[in-house]
């Protein structure tokens, strides 16, 4: 334990809630925990749920949140509407027995000790309003049966805690009825969206995605420039050069990935990995600058917005006339693709059932959806011996794997990435079983919470994951955490820097590309990050 940074020793979060009743307390909104509210101008831009009809910006510190006069009605009407539209919502409001099984499963609770971050309490914040406004017993008996009226205090509390949930679904794994607090958060956020109560980080990304196609707001030429810049690095470190294509009609495959990887370290190395892999395979594929965001920030606001954003992927596939779509490493992008996309836009008749052009494998599990996950694609390649790999090039790494919450709990993509990693790395170590696979922890910044002003929340929420990482770092000397999510790649490094300064973060495809022996490559003395490959020996 000697290697533990001091703050581990001093970290002593008390999981014992205070005495007394939570319902009577005024909400205490703390700096460092909350995200800045969205500005009306941003909302106007996306033409949805803006505050333009009452035109007020709101400031968290202010007593009054500049709500419209009929805010209660709007809230309750929306809630009624959603109760009628979603069986999940209705049942989850009704059947929780408060058994407490979910209470200590949330990373935000474990990192903060704030009792209202226990998933059951996060849900009760809304459930109490449901009882008080929608059920007869609640209306009659009030707080005796855990019911309350919708007040400003209740609304603020709801806002504060629904933006302290990363919709990771870890709690729902343990619930005897499968109650999914993420779903309740999704409902709560959509209801509050009616009052223009979303956060800047999410809404600005939404606005940029709709406008330019990606959350970074990269215009088409800039997007291409980012990839071009990557090509220079590849040339330097791998010794080959080639040109990827953009918006190319008639390509066989459209490749869609989150835009974060185009721009920021360490995601760009994952991007380099995609480029190299596809070049090596001679894949007939294209990038798109229009559908240049796989991530769906709309999903953190409202169902309709999520659908609007996501629709661009099929629209582009149709316009370009591709046969099927390959999806890159991203967490919530894949939750949306797997659980919503076909229902939103299906049936998808203008694409073909995905078949790997290299191995001939039919991806039967994607028959209707027509999109394949990069890990499914690569695992299939490796299984069929289609990649020449030298895992020793990753020997300087001791790798562990962080299951991103969405692929794990909204998909079940558990073995594919492990199979790939084990084939491209010689040193792989699992974190403790309570922290991986379906029990995996969120990075701490999911569902649009990776802003900068809420860094304390992110570091606290990231703690359970980082604590598990610390365990394998101490025990096996793990120095690299692999993941298949762009938000992870943005969120894990600052958390690691704080809790595990000696561990890096990588996408799985980056590891693949480092091990990949490419035709015509120069001497691979350096890996994609420009570090010397330890096992490289010059030919005699």
């Amino acid at each position, binding site marked *: 334990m000697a290697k533990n940074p001091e703050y581990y020793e001093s970290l002593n979060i008390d999981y014992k809630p205070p005495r007394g009743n939570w319902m009577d307390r005024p909400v205490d909104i703390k700096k460092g925990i909350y995200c800045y509210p969205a500005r009306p101008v941003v909302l106007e831009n996306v033409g949805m749920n803006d505050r333009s009809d009452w035109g007020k910006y709101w400031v968290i510190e202010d007593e009054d949140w500049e709500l419209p006069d009929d805010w209660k009605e709007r809230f309750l009407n929306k809630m009624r509407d959603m109760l009628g539209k979603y069986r*999940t919502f209705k049942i989850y409001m009704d059947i929780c027995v408060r058994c407490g099984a979910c209470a200590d499963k949330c990373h935000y609770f474990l990192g903060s000790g704030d009792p209202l971050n226990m998933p059951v309490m996060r849900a009760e914040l809304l459930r109490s309003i449901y009882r008080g406004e929608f059920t007869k017993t609640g209306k009659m008996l009030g707080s005796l049966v855990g019911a309350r009226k919708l007040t400003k205090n209740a609304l603020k509390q709801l806002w504060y805690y629904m933006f302290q949930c990363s919709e990771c679904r870890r709690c729902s*794994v343990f619930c005897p009825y499968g109650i999914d607090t993420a779903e309740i958060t999704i409902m709560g956020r959509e209801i509050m969206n009616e009052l223009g109560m979303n956060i800047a980080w999410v809404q600005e990304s939404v606005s940029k995605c709709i406008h330019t196609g990606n959350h970074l707001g990269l215009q088409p030429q800039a997007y291409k420039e980012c990839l071009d810049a990557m090509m220079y690095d590849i040339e330097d470190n791998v010794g080959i050069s080639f040109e990827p294509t953009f918006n*190319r009609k008639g390509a066989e495959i459209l490749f869609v990935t989150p835009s974060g990887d185009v721009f920021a370290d360490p995601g760009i190395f994952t991007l380099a990995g995609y480029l190299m892999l596809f070049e090596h395979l001679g894949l007939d594929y294209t990038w798109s*600058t229009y559908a240049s965001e796989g991530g769906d920030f709309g999903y953190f606001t409202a169902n309709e917005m999520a659908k609007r954003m996501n629709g661009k992927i099929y629209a582009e596939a149709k316009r370009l006339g591709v046969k099927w779509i390959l999806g890159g490493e991203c967490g919530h992008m894949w939750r949306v693709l797997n*659980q919503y996309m*076909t*229902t939103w836009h299906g049936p998808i008749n203008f694409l073909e059932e995905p078949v790997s052009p290299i191995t001939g494998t039919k991806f039967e599990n994607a028959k209707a959806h027509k999109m394949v996950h990069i890990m499914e694609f690569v695992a299939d390649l490796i*299984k069929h011996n289609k990649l020449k790999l030298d895992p020793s090039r990753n020997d300087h790494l001791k790798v562990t794997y962080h299951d991103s919450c969405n692929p794990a709990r909204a998909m079940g993509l558990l073995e*594919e990435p492990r199979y790939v990693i084990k084939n491209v790395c010689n040193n792989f170590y699992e974190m403790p079983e309570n922290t991986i696979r379906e029990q995996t922890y969120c990075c701490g910044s999911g569902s649009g919470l990776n802003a900068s002003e809420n860094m304390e929340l992110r570091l606290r929420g990231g703690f359970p994951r980082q604590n598990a990482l610390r365990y394998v770092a101490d025990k096996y000397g793990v120095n690299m955490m692999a993941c298949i999510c762009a938000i992870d790649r943005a969120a894990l490094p600052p958390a690691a820097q704080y809790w595990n300064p000696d561990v890096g973060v990588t996408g799985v495809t980056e590891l693949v590309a480092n091990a990949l022996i490419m035709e015509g490559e120069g001497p691979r003395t350096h890996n994609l990050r420009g570090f010397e490959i330890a096992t490289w020996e010059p030919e005699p």
Partner: protein
Amino acid sequence: MGVKVSLSVSLGVVLAIVVVALVGGEVSTLQPVFGIFVPYAAFVIFLVGFIYRVVDWGRSPVPYRIPTTCGQQKTLPWIKQNKIENPSSTLGVIGRMILEVFAFRSLFRHTKAEMASGNIVYGASKWIWLGAILFHYSFLIIAVRHLRLFLEPVPFFINGLDLVDGMFQIGAPTLYLTDLLLIGAVSYLLVRRLIVPKMRYISLANDYFPLFLILGIGISGVLMRFFIRVDIVSVKELTMGLATLHPVMPEGIGAIFFVHVALISTLFAYFPFSKLMHAGGVFLSPGRNLANTNRAKMHVNPWEYPVKIHPYEDYEDEFREKMKEAGIPVERE
């Protein structure tokens, strides 16, 4: 409400029911009320309420297929799928639901996370699972055993159950194992709510009340069997009358019986308005009862509507010059 209020109100209501039934049960003119009217009314409320609630849930559609996946998905043929925890067929879903309903599979995963010198440690913690299983199975078996009061002749399996349940032959009349387990398990669930700080924090009167009620049912039942005997022949006459819809009110059933019946009637009538509806809801919970086949098979949402997607044409119109300059193909020059 604070713990004290929640506790005293829920306990108070249960005690009030006991007192009212004790007093009323002694008055012969009121006996038909407590012995016939109240049970019938409670049963009707239960039946109508339960069905209403389930139908009401059913009225809200399941727009998206969003099961929580707890195992490997169906994917490439050489990767072993977890067919139960991540089902892709109806059979798999049924398997998953059977495990949830009969074995409380998800609750069985429970671990306890604690902070020890700056690290989170996970301890196995199966007590809540054990308590819940013992409580529910005892409750079920006791309920089934009670059918002997409503059926004539008594079916063989109820006699069999009786025999097994009473196999320890302790005392006379024989003590049923499930009576002990029920009272023990409910007491555990109650004590847990009171002494575990997290549980105390999340518990409401709605949580204490059913526990007190069931505890009262259990205790009054045991009292009736061992300490304040009631005339079992008259009881059967009454219950058979209820079951055959020809109610009669025999003389001389002890007041304790009316306490037992009043508490059970309360439980029945309370059921549809409370969290006890989880008994129906668990079957309808979309978090568990759907197959994860969204990519293979389209799931239809009855209220899906078209939305405005930022059109490619607008995008190109806005960036055409820049695209051309960068060598990105455009539709219109």
